[in-house]
């Protein structure tokens, strides 16, 4: 790797010098070649230095390892590297695991009906009016992934009307895929009987066909994994996601849908798993789309951008000032 890196500047430099050096006097070529030589020497020196540094680091690591082994229990504790998650700004809304207030709130919020098993999810997927191929593809993938979902092509119907009609037909959730420049770029997730509405921006999207070694999805109800949703806001969002999937996952289908939150980016993955080595390892086969979402705003009540009550809005200038501050 280092060789390639070093070669590039050399070759470009050589080509430059050769271009210039042809019709010019010998003095110039001599100068250029001497510069070339010094540059090559510098590159080699640089490489040597880097190798030295790496060797020194290896030595230190080995020494520490040995100390740890010999001392065993009494060894100085392993140093914990500083990560962004470690140094995250303290958020007042972080949920403790046994927060009664939170549990009480959650037992009475809009999605409690799902969690008390009063309703089964029925999802309506729709899109911007006159959507293009990519958006349709994405909607098909979502339909495959989320059981009990249907696609509805919106031909200019206003979104509020869609919401009303969907509630009448007893859908529990509405997903609107928003499109821009012929590509899906946002998702409005609305929990229907007057549930909260969230708008996510799709940061990256990969269809199943583009993933290497992709598998075929089945129609078993998937398990859901929701990782790292720590704050109150995160809890609401996670519950909204959970409402999309039916209650009883068929474990025999071994399908798992993961929504993992890391630094406010929610990664969606869809796998089939298999336990290997007597249950000490799990192998994952990726199915289905792979996309990242970022929450832009969360609104109480159904979709009403003009006069709705926003619970949370990402205001860039106020909120994105610190690199250690996350909201989900």
């Amino acid at each position: 790797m280092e060789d390639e890196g070093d070669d590039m500047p050399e070759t470009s430099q050589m080509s430059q010098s050769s271009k210039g050096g042809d019709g010019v006097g010998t003095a110039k070529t001599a100068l250029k070649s001497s510069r070339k030589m010094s540059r090559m020497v510098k590159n080699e020196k640089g490489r040597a230095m880097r190798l030295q540094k790496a060797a020194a680091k290896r030595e230190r690591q080995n020494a520490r390892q040995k100390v740890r082994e010999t001392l065993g229990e009494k060894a100085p504790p392993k140093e914990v590297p500083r990560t962004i998650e470690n140094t995250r700004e303290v958020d007042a809304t972080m949920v403790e695991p046994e927060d009664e207030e939170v549990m009480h709130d959650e037992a009475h919020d809009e999605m409690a009906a799902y969690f008390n098993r009063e309703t089964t999810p029925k999802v309506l997927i729709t899109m911007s009016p006159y959507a293009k191929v990519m958006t349709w593809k994405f909607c098909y993938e979502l339909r495959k992934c989320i059981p009990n979902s249907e696609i509805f092509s919106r031909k200019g119907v206003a979104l509020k009307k869609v919401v009303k009609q969907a509630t009448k037909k007893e859908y529990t959730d509405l997903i609107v895929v928003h499109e821009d420049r012929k590509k899906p770029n946002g998702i409005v997730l609305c929990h229907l009987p007057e549930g909260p509405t969230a708008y996510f921006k799709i940061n990256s999207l990969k269809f199943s066909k583009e993933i290497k070694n992709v598998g075929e999805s089945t129609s078993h109800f998937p398990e859901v994994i929701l990782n790292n949703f720590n704050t109150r806001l995160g809890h609401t969002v996670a519950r909204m996601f959970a409402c999309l999937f039916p209650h009883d996952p068929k474990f025999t289908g071994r399908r798992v849908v993961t929504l993992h939150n890391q630094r406010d980016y929610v990664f969606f993955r869809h796998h089939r798993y298999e336990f290997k080595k007597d249950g000490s390892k799990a192998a994952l086969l990726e199915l289905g789309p792979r996309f990242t979402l970022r929450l832009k705003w969360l609104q109480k009540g159904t979709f009403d951008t003009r006069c709705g009550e926003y619970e949370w809005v990402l205001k860039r200038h106020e909120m994105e000032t610190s690199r250690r501050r996350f909201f989900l």
Partner: protein
Amino acid sequence: MQCDDVTWNILNKGHCSYKVKTKPQNFCRNEYNLTGLCNRASCPLSNSQYATVREENGVLFLYAKVIERSHFPRRLWEKTKLSRNMTKALEQISEQLIHWPEYIRHKCKARLIRIQQYLIRMRKMELKGRQKRLIPIQRKIERREVRREEKALIAAKLDTAIEKELLERLRQGTYGDIYNFPQRAFDRIIDQEEQEEEVEQEEEVEYEREDDEDVGRKQYVADFEESDEEDEAMEEGNGVHWSPPNTSSEESGGDDSDESDSDEPTTSKAVKGKKKDAKATKKPKRTTRRPRVEIEYETEPAEQRQRMKVRH
């Protein structure tokens, strides 16, 4: 009185401040111009007999130039209000501009129609609701987000996180009887010898459900990096994984359920205690107990039932 030709010559060849020169057209910025182009016939300054149709706040007027008043510029143009009805307005124009040159009459009517059309469209748009708002893409923000997403992806270590979670659930026994691992069998036997409790199916089911709740509880024990929230909610969601008799299991299942709850009975206890609000009906269990579910698999039902009996 007015020498139109001379005026036109001067304006055309010389300088006209209303003229806008573009390739290939010349436009006239004069507000009384009928067509908007800079022509001999369209120039309001160099035609003594001239008329236009203009609208103000949605009301249409016919402006006719009365050349006798050319030295009173303020009174030069005579204004007549046109009716809202288009056909009537057209008739009014014909009437007012009777005996006027064809060109002006025709162009006035055309302009009237055009104005009417755009007024209608404006009204429709007002009623229709908000137009799409164009939000500009901020390149710096986009680049920053892409970069941060990459870093977050690396930090997330998705595959390992998912594997860990699944293995946790396996350990906790959420999958119950499906997986039959020899190592677990060993554990099972040990546990079995330790406790002998009659477990009814309900309890087992409850146990499983409660186990699910446990799964979320990981935050208590596991490392800080990955705290699985969504515990009660989600676990309740994924609650009962068994409607006992029916699951068509392709796997000829393990006879016994997987392994007892394991390493975290104590911690889970405290946690579960709280959890029980929602499920008050469930019996308070919580000791190392092994779930035993009687499931009749299609493959070898008799055998299993037999084994179950033996255990009891």
